């Protein structure tokens, strides 16, 4: 057992700092085995030197490392020593690049470097080698819920990659909504004409694939376990149920079309000649390539499409969002008419026409070329007079109320996600006397946190739309298609491919106990000291990923394969019994205690910065790359997520003489940027209560600040630190210096 220290003197570190004295600090005060210097530590020679020490036998063998060089975000390849506990002391971005040169600054800059070395040595002593828990399972079988075009694409892609798939479909046929369409939007250049949906061929391919099992008329009655070993009960409405094991889950449960009966202003239900887009598909299918006929048998000669019917509207009972596909769908449906007979009048009344996707604009242009009339107008009502219809609308270009006749009106209604039960909904609806139709659960998860994946807004399953579109807040369960955001069939199929790739990744990672996104590859997992636990359940409630269940006595049960390793449980724990092998209350606590706090009269305050390693820390690194000068009194400790910040750290810091604490996490809320979705939010909630602690200590509340910092806040992040320096200058030094 030996801790090896390696001090790099390259990149100007040797020129700016007194490395001889830093070596002494590491060995005498950090109490590590030795400290070697190298003038180019990340070179092959430098890395070889470290590897030789790791490979040594007997007393010379090094088991933990302190790399005193650049930021932990730099040279990650060179300084990758596998599971060996390693502390990275940031002397480059953290010290010399943010401090000005000149003899008047030398003393404080040197103190800063020495502190960081003490912190690194203290951290590594509290770290232990992380190993997998041993509760892994490997199962190459993916459960796909939903047999629409998304689910079938996912199954076929899984099979192509050599994995098994089971499709659970609640109806008696595969195909979903796409299976009810006459034709679909074009997927290939020149994107000019509707094309065959390809659903029949896809169903045939699914049925012919011996790696794919299809359960029709079936639902998921129960899902328990974790990635790599999901245990699922499949209930069938026509026969006996089945028990099956799966490695990962893709939820492709799609959407339910908005109920047009909520739109009496458009005469839906009053006239058979007002139909929804989906109903028109059935009419077109019945007509084949011939003339589309109305319910009364008359050939349609003049059709009007009403865009945004009951959507993008704040009216009661309407959908507030855009469903993404309806403009292109109306364009396609207008072509059904124009392609069968160019003399048919087709008018699309739109407010904002959006045709997303590569070929969307071409498709729109093609419809204009086919003489489909596009008028920018907002429809107020549709009047049914006998079998003919009068569409009243406001022309938004000519700014006048007007109307037009039609013998068929098609409503572009929206999509509502089938995401199951909203587990975060307030449960007091029954108390209001309001009768609500209970929503059926899709996955019936046997998780403490609820039976379905959490939702974000409008009932769509939560996943970050840019950074991690398929990751739900339940590890190993991935959503694809309109269940996570409104989209068309082509996008849903692309989605299916992405989600199935993530599912495969989850299977492979969970087999060896490695974390999924965003700490991919991390082997550590939370564990707790049972005798200290008060069964308060705060960890199970705060875990953003529903990883923690409770046993019958109320003790937490950590399902390591479901865990994303954010440490929110650790931050939540009021008695600090939760820890990871390589990240714990102790690893951070020891660091902040290792800082030398000069006395009250030295005019050298100390400011602790807890920065999220995903966004805030890289922002500070980048500010350093721009040589943005910062105070010499800040001491930055990266944290996995601000959610892992335990209030004990703040108390310890203030109690041991720090003058201020700055916490930097990611943006929270519905447009969150937090890699652990809720971590930053949890931290903000927790820190809102820190005021009590401060007042009992008789300290000013300004001494603690919590900020939302994005990775792009390169100029702002250092300014926030400067602000705290100003606050300390104003309110004075902390009286808690001993």
């Amino acid at each position, binding site marked *: 057992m030996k801790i090896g220290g390696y001090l790099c003197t390259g990149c100007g570190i040797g020129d700016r700092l007194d490395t001889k004295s830093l070596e002494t600090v590491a060995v005498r005060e950090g109490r590590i085995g030795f400290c070697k210097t190298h003038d180019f530590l990340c070179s092959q020679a430098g890395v070889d030197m470290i590897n030789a020490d790791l490979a040594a036998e007997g007393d010379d063998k090094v088991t933990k490392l302190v790399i005193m060089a650049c930021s932990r975000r730099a040279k990650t390849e060179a300084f990758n020593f596998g599971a060996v506990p390693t502390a990275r002391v940031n002397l480059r971005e953290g010290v010399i690049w943010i401090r000005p040169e000149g003899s008047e600054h030398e003393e404080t800059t040197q103190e800063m470097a020495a502190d960081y070395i003490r912190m690194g040595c203290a951290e590594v002593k509290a770290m232990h080698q992380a190993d997998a828990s041993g509760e892994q399972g490997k199962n190459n079988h993916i459960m796909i819920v939903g047999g629409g075009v998304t689910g079938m694409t996912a199954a076929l892609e899984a099979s192509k990659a050599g994995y098994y798939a089971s499709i659970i479909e609640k109806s008696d046929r595969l195909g979903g909504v796409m299976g009810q369409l006459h034709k679909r939007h074009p997927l290939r250049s020149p994107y000019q004409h509707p094309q065959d949906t390809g659903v029949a061929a896809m169903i045939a391919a699914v049925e012919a694939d011996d790696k794919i099992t299809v359960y029709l008329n079936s639902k998921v009655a129960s899902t328990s376990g974790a990635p790599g070993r999901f245990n699922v009960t499949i209930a069938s409405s026509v026969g006996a149920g089945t028990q099956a094991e799966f490695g990962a889950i893709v939820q492709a449960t799609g959407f339910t079309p908005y109920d047009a009966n909520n739109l009496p202003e458009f005469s839906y239900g009053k006239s058979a000649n007002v139909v929804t887009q989906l109903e028109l598909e059935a009419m077109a299918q019945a007509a084949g390539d011939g003339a589309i006929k109305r319910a009364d048998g008359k050939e349609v000669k003049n059709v009007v499409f009403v865009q945004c019917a009951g959507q993008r509207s704040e009216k009661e009972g309407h959908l507030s969002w855009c469903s993404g596909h309806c403009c292109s769908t109306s364009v396609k449906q207008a072509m059904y008419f124009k392609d069968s007979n160019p003399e048919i009048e087709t008018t699309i009344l739109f407010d904002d026409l959006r045709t997303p996707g590569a070929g969307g604009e071409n498709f729109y*242009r093609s419809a*204009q*070329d086919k*003489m489909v*009339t596009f*008028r*920018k107008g907002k429809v107020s009502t549709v009047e049914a007079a006998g079998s003919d219809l009068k569409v009243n609308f406001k*022309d938004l270009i*000519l700014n006048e109320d*007007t109307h037009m006749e039609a013998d068929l009106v098609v409503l572009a209604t929206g999509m509502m996600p089938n995401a199951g039960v909203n587990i975060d909904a307030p449960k007091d609806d029954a108390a209001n006397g309001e009768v609500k139709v209970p929503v059926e659960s899709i996955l019936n998860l046997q998780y403490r946190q609820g039976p379905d994946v959490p939702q974000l807004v409008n009932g769509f399953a939560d996943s970050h739309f840019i950074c991690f579109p398929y990751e739900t807040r339940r590890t190993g369960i991935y959503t694809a298609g309109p269940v996570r955001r409104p989209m068309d069939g082509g996008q849903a199929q692309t989605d299916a491919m992405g989600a199935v790739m993530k599912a495969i990744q989850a299977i492979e990672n969970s087999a060896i106990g490695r974390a999924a996104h965003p700490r991919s590859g991390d082997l550590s997992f939370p564990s707790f000291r049972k005798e200290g636990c008060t069964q308060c359940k705060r960890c199970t409630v705060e875990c953003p990923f529903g990883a923690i269940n409770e046993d019958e006595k109320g003790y937490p049960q950590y399902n390591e394969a479901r865990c994303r390793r954010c440490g929110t449980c650790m931050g939540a724990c009021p008695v600090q019994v939760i820890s990871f092998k390589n990240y714990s209350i102790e690893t951070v606590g020891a660091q902040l205690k290792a800082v030398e706090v000069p006395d009250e009269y030295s005019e050298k305050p100390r400011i602790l910065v807890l920065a999220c390693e995903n966004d805030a820390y890289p922002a500070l690194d980048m500010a350093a790359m721009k040589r943005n000068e910062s105070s010499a009194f800040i001491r930055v400790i990266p944290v996995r997520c601000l959610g892992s910040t335990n209030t004990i750290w703040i108390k310890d810091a203030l109690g041991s003489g720090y003058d201020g604490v700055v916490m930097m996490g990611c943006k929270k809320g519905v447009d969150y940027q937090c890699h652990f979705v809720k971590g930053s939010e949890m931290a903000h909630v927790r820190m809102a209560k820190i005021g009590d602690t401060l007042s009992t200590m008789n300290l000013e509340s300004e001494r603690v600040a919590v900020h939302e910092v994005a990775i792009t806040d390169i100029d702002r992040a250092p300014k926030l630190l400067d602000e705290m320096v100003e606050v300390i200058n104003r309110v004075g030094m902390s009286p808690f210096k001993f």
Partner: protein
Amino acid sequence: MSTAVNQAMVEKYKGNFLKEVTENVEEGNWVKMCMQCGVCSGSCPLGPHWDHPPQEIFMMIRANKREEVLSSTSMWMCTSCYNCIARCPRGLPITHIMHGLAHYSKRIGLKPKNQPTEKFGQMFWDNLTKKGRVNELKLGLGLYFKDGFAEGVKVAMSKQKLGMNMMKAKRMSPMEMLGGHGVSDLAGFHAMLKKAEELEAARVGENTDKK
């Protein structure tokens, strides 16, 4: 004749003005491709002075406002600066469409009354076709007197010095007043114009006959 053509067109297209424009107006087949972004209207330097900027004209065509479009002074206001063509994201030849619409409205007799651009256009054409060369002296004087004799004398007097200078510099000859110079084969030129007129009439006739 004009009103007859107009009647025939009304008969033929039965309220589908977009189709009428597509089939009869020069570059009119582009009108359907407009996506109503409004960049043309925003780019037109004279836009604020038009009754209906191009974007509106295109929407009025789709809204079957036939009389209103064809009797509008708007497209006669176009100065052919080509800003709209340069900027249209859909590549519509808007300037040409405006001239096409103006010409069509004149052909079927719906042009606005006393529109100076229209008057000047006719004057220019008559002047040009007479001899095959533009008689600048007559054209200029014609313009002076377009608003009546008294107004013409006033303008002519104010331009007196300019005229004298141009004569001195041999940029203008008073002899042009007496007939003026023309192309060498004037008869051939007139035959050519006649033929073109026949062809155009045949084309229009064919279009109006086809029902």
